[in-house]
């Protein structure tokens, strides 16, 4: 079978698997988020943490719970990393510097998983599993909880209650993430991903070299790294490492895991608002962007432009032989469109346009399909903007799902959309203006600029992948990117919950012949157009200086 045909079949198999999961998984998540019944284990947990599982929260209280949970998580993780030397299973790794531990703690709490350290040389097993992997679970759950609150803003009327954050958090972890993780951790372990508590194990190779083979509870962490769209590798090489991703089968399982929840959530949305067609419209937009991006990126990589790649005859620098171009392109497009940031090949060595597409994917704001929960709330905010734009065209107050989009709602939506680009562009600008920080680039010229632009785009959009050449383990980058991650995560959440609170208080207006139908192809086109215009206008100058300049000159 030719490589091209195999690549297409692989993508088709993935789409088929995701399509099969869309209804059952989406419906299941909707049930988790709406049922009044608690499991016995959950009641026990509510008792321990001291919350009333049946008490709904107003939006400021819901927000306060999210913020408190994030703050406590950052402090706990920071402490765990800094005290690693006194903990079990620390493998004797050196003490991590304060700025790097701070950056790492924020990174995992913010669902970003930007890593300025290399896993095998900086983290012991206990911190990986009880610190980092726990945040992989709970930060994903926070994203889903926030989108649940936003959907309740649409479905509830004349109330100030949006649900209970602690109930959402516990249920999403116990009923959704944990069961899927157990099953797929075993699938990955069966295909060769390691799962043990060994330290480095010395062997003498066939030709006499001494090699240190690493150990660790990798399969259990690998699953949630992908399922929760986190992306923080157990090892420095992330999902390119053979112990994280040993073959073509495990690779497709991993891509499936990172897409499955974000692509099923539109069904949850449709189900909860009582009109499945609304979910289909949203998933259609997500799917369009995903398909276009995957096809373009794989095509760009197969053309291997760039002087060094031309000389090699294929864009195999930074790619594994067992994956090749197609499986690397599929992974790269999916990981940058979902805020995951795990990599099975290194984007810094991609062709200029291929690398440019990975940056562009993140600039879309991680909405196609985006992170767990965060993808859908980002998309719904853009849907609100699209409905508003359509309303302006015909000169009537727009409404979406029976809720009027007035000044207050649009203010929150606009703030949401402005936050991330501000962080990305200001951060990149400041870094480029400082000579010391400019020196962090590995490559020079347009490609070096792309490294810095990629870093801030990745941090502010909570993706976490990198053009890895850049040296970011410095006081300045750890601090600046840490701020980009935490503001890029929490400010949008503030605006989404405020928006949800405002929507929930409204009395719904009945649909009239003048109402824009938001489940038809027309709306799919309108929303896609709005996304492209918003992103294009915001980022075109920056893209032109980096990947586009490099692509056109090579």
């Amino acid at each position, binding site marked *: *079978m030719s*490589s091209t045909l*195999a690549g297409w079949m692989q993508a088709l198999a993935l789409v088929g698997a995701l399509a099969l999961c869309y209804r059952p998984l989406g419906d299941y998540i909707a049930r988790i988020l709406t049922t009044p019944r608690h499991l016995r284990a959950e009641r026990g947990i509510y008792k*321990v943490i001291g919350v009333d599982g049946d008490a709904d929260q107003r939006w400021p209280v819901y927000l*306060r719970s999210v913020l*408190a*949970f994030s*703050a*406590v998580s950052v402090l706990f993780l920071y402490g765990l990393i800094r005290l690693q030397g006194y903990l079990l299973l620390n493998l004797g790794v050196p003490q991590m510097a304060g700025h790097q531990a701070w950056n790492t703690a924020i990174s995992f709490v913010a669902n970003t998983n930007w890593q300025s350290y*290399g896993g095998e040389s900086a983290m012991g097993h206990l911190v990986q599993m009880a610190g980092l992997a726990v945040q992989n*679970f709970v930060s994903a759950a926070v994203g889903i909880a926030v989108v649940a609150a936003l959907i309740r803003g649409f479905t509830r009327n004349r109330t100030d209650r949006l649900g209970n954050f602690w109930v959402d*958090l516990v249920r999403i972890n116990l009923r959704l993430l944990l069961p899927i*993780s157990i099953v797929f*951790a*075993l699938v990955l372990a069966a*295909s*060769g991903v390691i799962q*043990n508590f060994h330290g*480095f194990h010395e*062997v*003498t*190779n*066939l*030709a*006499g*070299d001494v*090699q*240190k*083979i690493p*150990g660790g509870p990798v*399969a259990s962490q690998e699953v949630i790294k992908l399922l929760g769209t986190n992306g923080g590798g157990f090892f*420095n*090489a992330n999902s*390119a*490492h*053979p*112990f994280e991703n*040993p073959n*073509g089968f495990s690779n497709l399982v991993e891509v499936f895991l990172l897409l499955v929840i974000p692509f099923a959530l539109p069904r949850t949305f449709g189900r909860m608002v009582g009109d499945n067609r609304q979910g289909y419209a949203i998933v259609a937009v997500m799917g369009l962007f995903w398909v276009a991006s995957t096809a373009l990126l794989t095509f760009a990589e197969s053309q291997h432009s*760039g002087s*060094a790649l031309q*000389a090699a*005859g*294929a864009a*195999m620098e*930074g790619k*594994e*032989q*067992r*994956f*090749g171009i*197609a499986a690397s392109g599929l992974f790269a497009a999916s990981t940058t469109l979902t805020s995951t940031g795990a990599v*099975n090949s*290194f984007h*810094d*060595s991609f062709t*200029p346009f291929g*690398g440019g597409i990975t940056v562009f994917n993140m600039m879309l704001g991680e909405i196609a399909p985006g992170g767990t929960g965060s993808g859908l709330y980002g998309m719904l905010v853009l849907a609100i903007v699209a409905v508003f734009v359509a309303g302006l065209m015909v000169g009537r107050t727009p409404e979406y799902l029976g809720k009027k989009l007035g000044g207050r709602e649009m203010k929150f939506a606009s703030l949401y959309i402005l936050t991330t680009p501000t962080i990305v562009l200001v951060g990149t600008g400041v870094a480029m203006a400082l000579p010391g920080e400019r020196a962090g680039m590995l*490559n020079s010229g347009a*490609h070096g600029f792309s490294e810095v632009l990629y870093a801030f785009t990745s941090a502010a959009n909570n993706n976490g992948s990198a053009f890895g050449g850049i040296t970011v383990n410095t006081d300045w980058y750890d601090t600046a990117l840490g701020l980009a991650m935490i503001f890029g995560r929490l400010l949008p959440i503030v605006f989404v919950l405020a928006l949800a609170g405002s929507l929930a208080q409204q009395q719904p207006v009945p649909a009239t012949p003048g109402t824009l139908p938001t489940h038809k192809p027309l709306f799919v086109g309108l929303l896609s157009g709005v996304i492209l215009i918003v992103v294009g206008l915001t980022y075109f100058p920056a893209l032109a200086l980096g990947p586009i300049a490099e692509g056109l000159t090579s």
Partner: protein
Amino acid sequence: MSKPLPAAVRTHFTALRALLVLTVILGVAYPLLVTGISQVAFSEKANGSIVKADGKEVGSSLIGQNFNLPKKNPDDPKEEAQPDPKWFQPRPSAAGTGYDASSSGASNQGPNSEDLLKAVNDRRAAVAAFDGVDPASVPADALTASGSGLDPDISPAYAKEQVNRVAKERGLPADMLNQLVDRYTESRPLGFLGNEAVNVVLLNKALSEQK
């Protein structure tokens, strides 16, 4: 009695308790459960797919290794390792000084990087001379470093290219080595996932067992 704590402070205590409970479930019980089952059901794979030759552990079938000549002066860090012509050679590696499994990683050099261009051209000349083939025929995987730096695989084309050299060095018939390469060529899982590959560690281990 003192006044009850303000709500904002109480929320943080709730958050701390929630985090601790979830850490016990997700950070301790869950990985222990998965480790327990994996160690019973797939212990060989869960422990790193270790390869043995003559009863001794020689590496992992998933982690590539160097097949170099011994250094003339083992204490000289500047001396460049030379490939041993008796073995099938792996891809170039950016992990440490080459296939250092305690330091995985890629070169991260850009598509137009001068350094990468020079490295690719140098490798093409060196590999062609080493294998005695036309420089234009050397496949891309022989000229580029993998993402992990630990790639255990090479392309079937690169393996075939090395057959004549290895056969000559070992005094083995080339036909036999071609068959060996075919036997260690892994087709795509399910016929269409990933890419075709020859596992150099397993191929060389089989080679070392040929008499």
